[in-house]
């Protein structure tokens, strides 16, 4: 029998640490954040979304076949479709469907 107390403690820890990270800037800069911090807050969104794109694709292998072909094709499809239609939901559904088909049936 597995005891559930320890995994429950781990879940509570993951929750507490995540909440602390999200709350820290609000606790540190209670009144008004310095101009430099506000500047970062203004330019970081675009930069972080760029970072997350790379983060999501980090395990793509370019050295071995298919050289990340499903990721390249599906990603470019999302960029093209989104630039054309500007509909986030459509871009996600089409990109995901394309990726699933490519990885399951083609490569």
């Amino acid at each position: 029998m597995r005891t559930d107390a320890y995994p429950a403690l781990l879940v509570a820890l993951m929750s507490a640490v995540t909440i602390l990270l999200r709350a820290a800037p609000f606790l540190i800069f209670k009144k008004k954040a310095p101009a430099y911090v506000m500047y970062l807050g203004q330019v970081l969104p675009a930069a972080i979304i760029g970072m997350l794109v790379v983060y999501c694709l980090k395990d793509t292998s370019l050295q071995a076949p298919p050289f990340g072909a499903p990721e390249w094709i599906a990603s470019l499809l999302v960029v093209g479709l989104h630039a054309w239609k500007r509909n986030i939901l459509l871009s996600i559904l089409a990109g995901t469907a394309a990726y699933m088909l490519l990885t399951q049936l083609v490569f």
Partner: protein
Amino acid sequence: METAKAAFVKSLPVMAGYIILGTGFGILAHSAGYGFLWALAMSLFIFAGSMQYVGVGLLSGGASVLTVILTTVMVNARHLFYSISMLRYYGKAGRYKPYLIFSLTDETYSLLCDGKVPEGSDPDRFRFLVSLFNHSYWVLGSVIGSLVGGILPFSTAGIEFSMTALFIASFTEQWITAGNHLPAATGLLGTLLCLVVFGPDNFLIPAMVLITLLLTVFRNSIGDGKKVDA
């Protein structure tokens, strides 16, 4: 009611992604021996997608307390950045503030970071409802996933690309609307550089440091963000 409707419409792009990714998480937790209640508790109280996927591995591997704390800090450190850029919107959100801060996920952030709210709606209430809708999609997906377990009639391999697609679409959207592309390019190329240098397991923290340094250096040319729309 108008505010709720607008918030629901705003949350729609995340709905499919969260239900699908949440279902993926529920299936993963179930297959690791953590059923309905575990998936529900994790999605209710952690509400951080990639951390929950990692968390299932930590639970089933019997990780130490220190490992769990450090891994959570590493995987979720980027949330510091989200909070910093939402200071000016969430700082005076009153009774909505605690939940808004708790529920600031990648996806909620990507919907709300431009600061735009529909005309005539209460901004704090609008952001609260968008966050709440997103949270409920995530919980719903997790519960579905843990209940259907492994009985799906088709392969779900590759479904995790929905998260990638969401960020690529957000990136494309902000690239089209932003006046200055330097922050976006810095994020993309800086992270890529760190990925090449540090490898796929250790690049996130260096990337965050590098991005912060570069944006600090670029501060004068970007002009304190005044010309940046994103």
